[in-house]
């Protein structure tokens, strides 16, 4: 996606970030994140292990998509401007899923001489199901 330099007047309550699609997800995507983070839980890449735990196959690493969402928001509002980022996981994401990352401004605030925007975000599966929900606060430089 393209990166822009946004100003306070560009951002209104309801302003949406440019939604972005990622996928279809592959086990290679999961393994790449697992290697980068150090979380080698086999449930995300070992079919036999996942099935023994009661899942039909390996599923996506939740923190990977949290990271993709954080990066999506950073592309929109500035990587160095993030002051709070929170996610809640809902349904699992699976290999083959195409995930859509989107979000909108929910509040504009001024505190201690700084300007902030609050953002609500969602990562949706191609089924319409919600994979994760996110909330963030970004400072908007003068």
């Amino acid at each position, binding site marked *: 996606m393209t990166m822009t330099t946004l100003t306070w007047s560009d951002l209104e309550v309801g302003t949406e970030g440019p939604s972005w699609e990622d996928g279809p997800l592959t086990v290679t995507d999961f393994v790449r994140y697992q290697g*980068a*983070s150090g979380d080698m839980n086999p449930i995300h890449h070992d079919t036999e292990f996942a099935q023994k735990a*009661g899942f039909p196959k390996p599923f996506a690493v939740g923190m990977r998509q949290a*990271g993709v969402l*954080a*990066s999506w928001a950073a592309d929109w509002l*500035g990587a160095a401007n993030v002051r709070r*980022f929170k996610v809640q996981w809902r349904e699992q994401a699976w290999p083959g899923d195409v995930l859509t990352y989107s979000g909108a401004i929910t509040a504009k605030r001024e505190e201690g001489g700084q300007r902030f925007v609050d953002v609500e975000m969602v990562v949706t599966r191609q089924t319409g199901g919600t994979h994760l929900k996110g909330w963030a606060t970004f400072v908007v430089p003068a």
Partner: protein
Amino acid sequence: MDKSIEGNRGTPFRVVVEEGKVREFARAVSSSNPAYVADGPQATSPATFLASSVFWQGPDASPWGDAPLNWERILHGEQEFVFPGAPPAAGTELTAEARIDRIYEKEGKRGGTMTFVELVTEYRDGSGSVVVESRSTIIETSQAPGS
């Protein structure tokens, strides 16, 4: 879940925001944001980057102690990062300390009790200021999530 572990603290541990690890992480979250791959101290670490530090800490750094955990019933329900200023730049040396901040129970929608554990990790820079606070909410269900 042994509720007596509430308030437990791990031993502080050193975390370096390594430039190469930041780049590797950015690539792994499908990012092409140039801010993450800038040179040295000009590179910003991604907001969720420090979630990785738990996988590289020593055993004494964990506040769980000897509390038995039923990993088949544990879900990572929620994760939050708070940054008083910009996220730490590549090269920043941090000291992290984890604690079991809170343990509480809720009744599950489909029956059974869910136990919520909030694990907080504070990351301080060389001056002692907290530059990142991570809050992980871990849920222990009364049956395995896959069953």
